[in-house]
């Protein structure tokens, strides 16, 4: 027996020896990053070794290839083979060879192994990955390139310090360009609040203006279940509990407790303030408790998954009377409802999506790139050349978008028509998976937004219902880059606090715990879990962008 054990230990020891021995032999790794090409100027002194023209088309003298990586998206499955790259090549001499990263794990691997393509499009890079890559000199600094070769982007960044700050890495330098879309109806509003107008009509009720009216309408709808077009198993009010998309947050806003971030914070005069322990939030929570106790919200709001939530609110004929959603799922009968007056003297406001205009880090030039100037000129062309920009962003002209007689561009179809999207998958642009510059000027001069005229579209609803009742931008929390340690700590606090808060709020609403009796314990526990330190970190991240 002892001999056997010895042999076994010997075997394990052998394994360990092999581990270290082989390890030493296998020490080659991603460490040998190719030497960075400073601003694209090599020994010849010319940009990209003389390959790149300084202005006009084509961008390069000879056809070149740039490799790129982008995350897979099912609405645009053919980002690697889409016809737009032929268009780009024809015009610029640059062939963009896209590799679709199928999974987050593979993107992580790219950052961990340092195995980068020439250009990184939107792959959901996180702050730690960015910091690591920057530290290793894997990315090319963008600002000098913009100053020299990309006047449109450079000017935009100078005019929009918020966007600029939001794009900076922890070392305070710029390594990436964002996707910019200033469409007000998209960014200035998070969820619309939809209520079934035809049911209200059938019951002779107005569209609710106050929290009281809303509750009464829900009660009436429930009481009339099975009558008229109201189904017997109607769900009066349905949310996706505590999720920033589709959650209960606009109830808080109706009571004047503004929450502008999934972490329950709001910005007041540049100071980040926690709302989850603000005593004022007890009032909307009690209101939700009333709705729940009356059976106006089903218990499924806590247990359904997102797919089920999405299916229920989009059912047509409808089964849900009121819900929060990006788009109106029943444009024929659903009515966009404003925030509700609670009568407590506070101004009711809806959430704004955030005034960051789209995903950051959608174009990063890596130090593997032999043609950084050509690449940055391509990025500039996307911003300055309307046709090229819209083709790369939306898709082929004449199929996905077109211009009218006044020369203004308009869309032929949009994300809301998945069938059209699928049918034309080979002609689609990259949307927010790659850079675009659709700023104020673009919407004023170049673009004609057709949806403003389509009743119950999001654009229409924004113009007609929501424009003046959304939270002002100064109050919206936005987050800039903070150091790795801070970031890791922030995530840990966030998880602990979210878990506890979510469980407590669910208990308050279902009545498992009484809110008044437990409130002090709840607040004390939140402090215990690091709420103050968390808010400090949130403030730090806010300062990084709003400086």
């Amino acid at each position, binding site marked *: 027996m002892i001999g056997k054990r010895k042999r076994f230990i010997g075997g394990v020891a052998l*394994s360990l020896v092999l581990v270290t021995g082989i390890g030493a032999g296998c020490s080659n790794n991603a460490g040998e990053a190719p030497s960075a090409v400073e601003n694209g100027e090599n020994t010849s002194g010319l940009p990209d070794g003389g390959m790149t023209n300084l202005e006009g088309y084509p961008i390069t003298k000879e056809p070149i290839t740039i490799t790129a990586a982008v995350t897979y998206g*099912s*609405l645009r499955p053919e980002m690697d083979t889409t016809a737009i790259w032929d268009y780009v090549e024809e015009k610029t001499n640059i062939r963009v060879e896209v590799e679709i990263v199928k999974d987050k794990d593979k993107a992580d691997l790219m950052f*961990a192994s340092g195995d980068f393509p020439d250009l990184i499009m939107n792959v959901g890079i996180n702050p730690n990955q960015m910091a690591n890559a920057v530290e290793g000199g894997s990315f090319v600094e963008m600002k000098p390139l913009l100053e020299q070769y990309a006047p449109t982007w450079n000017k935009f960044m100078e005019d929009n310090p918020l966007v600029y700050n939001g794009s900076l890495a922890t070392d305070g330098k710029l390594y990436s360009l964002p996707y910019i879309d200033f469409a007000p109806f998209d960014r200035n509003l998070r969820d619309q609040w939809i209520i079934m107008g035809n049911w209200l009509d059938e019951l002779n009720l107005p569209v609710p203006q106050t929290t009281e009216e809303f509750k009464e309408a829900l009660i009436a709808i429930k009481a009339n279940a099975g009558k008229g077009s109201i189904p017997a198993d109607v769900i009066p009010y349905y949310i996706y509990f505590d999720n920033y*998309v589709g959650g209960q947050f606009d109830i808080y806003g109706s009571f004047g407790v503004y929450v502008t971030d999934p972490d329950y914070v709001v910005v007041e005069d540049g100071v980040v303030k926690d709302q989850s322990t603000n005593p004022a939030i007890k009032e909307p929570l009690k209101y939700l408790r009333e709705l729940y106790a009356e059976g106006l919200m089903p218990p499924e709001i806590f247990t359904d998954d997102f797919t089920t939530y999405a299916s229920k*609110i989009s059912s047509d004929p409808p089964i849900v009377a009121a819900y929060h959603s990006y788009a109106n799922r029943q444009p024929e009968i659903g009515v966009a409802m404003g925030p509700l007056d609670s009568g407590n003297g506070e101004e009711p406001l809806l959430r704004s999506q*955030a005034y960051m205009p789209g995903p950051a880090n959608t174009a990063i030039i890596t130090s593997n790139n032999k043609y950084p100037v050509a690449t940055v000129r391509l990025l500039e062309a996307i911003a300055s050349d309307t046709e090229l920009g819209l083709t790369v962003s939306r898709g082929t002209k004449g199929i996905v978008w077109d211009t009218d007689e006044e020369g203004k561009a308009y869309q032929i179809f949009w994300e809301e028509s998945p069938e059209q*999207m699928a049918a034309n998958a080979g002609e689609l642009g990259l949307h927010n998976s790659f850079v675009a510059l659709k700023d104020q000027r673009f919407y004023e001069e170049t673009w004609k937004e057709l949806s403003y005229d389509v009743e119950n579209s999001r654009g229409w609803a924004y113009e007609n219902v929501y424009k003046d009742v959304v939270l002002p931008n100064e109050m919206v929390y936005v987050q800039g880059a903070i150091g790795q340690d801070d970031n890791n700590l922030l995530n840990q606090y966030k998880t602990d606090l979210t878990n506890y808060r979510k469980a407590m709020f669910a208990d308050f609403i279902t009545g498992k715990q009484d809110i008044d009796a437990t409130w002090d314990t709840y607040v004390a526990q939140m402090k215990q879990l690091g709420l103050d330190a968390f808010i400090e970190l949130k403030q730090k991240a806010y300062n990084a962008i709003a400086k």
Partner: protein
Amino acid sequence: MSTAIKSTSRDRLYDIVNTVVLLVLLLVVAYPLYFVVIASISDPKLVATGRVLFWPQNFSFKGYMEVVNYSPIWTGYRNTLIYTTLFTLISVLVSLLAGYALARKPFPGKTAITAFLLFTMFFNGGLIPTYLLMREIGLYGNPAIIVLLGAVNVTNIIISRTFIKSSIPEELYEAASIDGCSHFSFFFRIVMPVSQALIAVLVLFAAVSQWNSWFNAMIYLNDEAHMPLQMVLRDLIVSQSALSTASNTDSMGGDAAAQIYLVESMRYAVIIVSTLPILCFYPFVQKYFVKGVMIGSVKG
């Protein structure tokens, strides 16, 4: 005589209890399976809202049509068939050979080799060095990697060892070796035929694991034409994965729900399309369980 009668009536009771238990189990397991089938031919919104219970609602084959009309699925099927066949072949052979060797009486290094293999069940270098190594030795992007990576399954080796050890006594080999029978001929003439049930189990384990796998393909393959079925199906429904939506809706902004509507009708159909072939494979494996009994009796 009286004991025989007593035992038959006791046996009857045993049979009745046994049958009832199995029937109840059958019901409990069959209903959710049935649900998957009716859900795959019903309106997905009605499924999610709990209105599909016993019969399909708004019967349609839309989900299936979308899956079947998605052309990469057929290359995916072909690739998966090739990968599964080769992988099963290699994996089962490796497991059997190693299992046989470890089932024999002690020889120098046997315990050390066992430990050497077992160690890998618990400790591994992680994804990064493996990925770098594959790039180094040129297996990245090479379909061979799908067949080779994971071909050694230590659990299966141990199972083979246990099975061979308990069904083929050392004396039998010693008797054979006196007759001049080498390990090789003993393995192919005696062990393989006697271990049909074991081989059936190993084939099933290997085939199913390869059939269901997608991770290695996702990491190590880069050519769409080489992707196995599960990878193709993942592309089809990746955004509907509740996993990705639940964690990303907050940060995604925009219309998080829109992508879900695109693919929700395929959720259940995809399961049936991808599972049916391997389900049909099982009855063939079952046959060998029965055969094993007959060989056992011949041997006895």
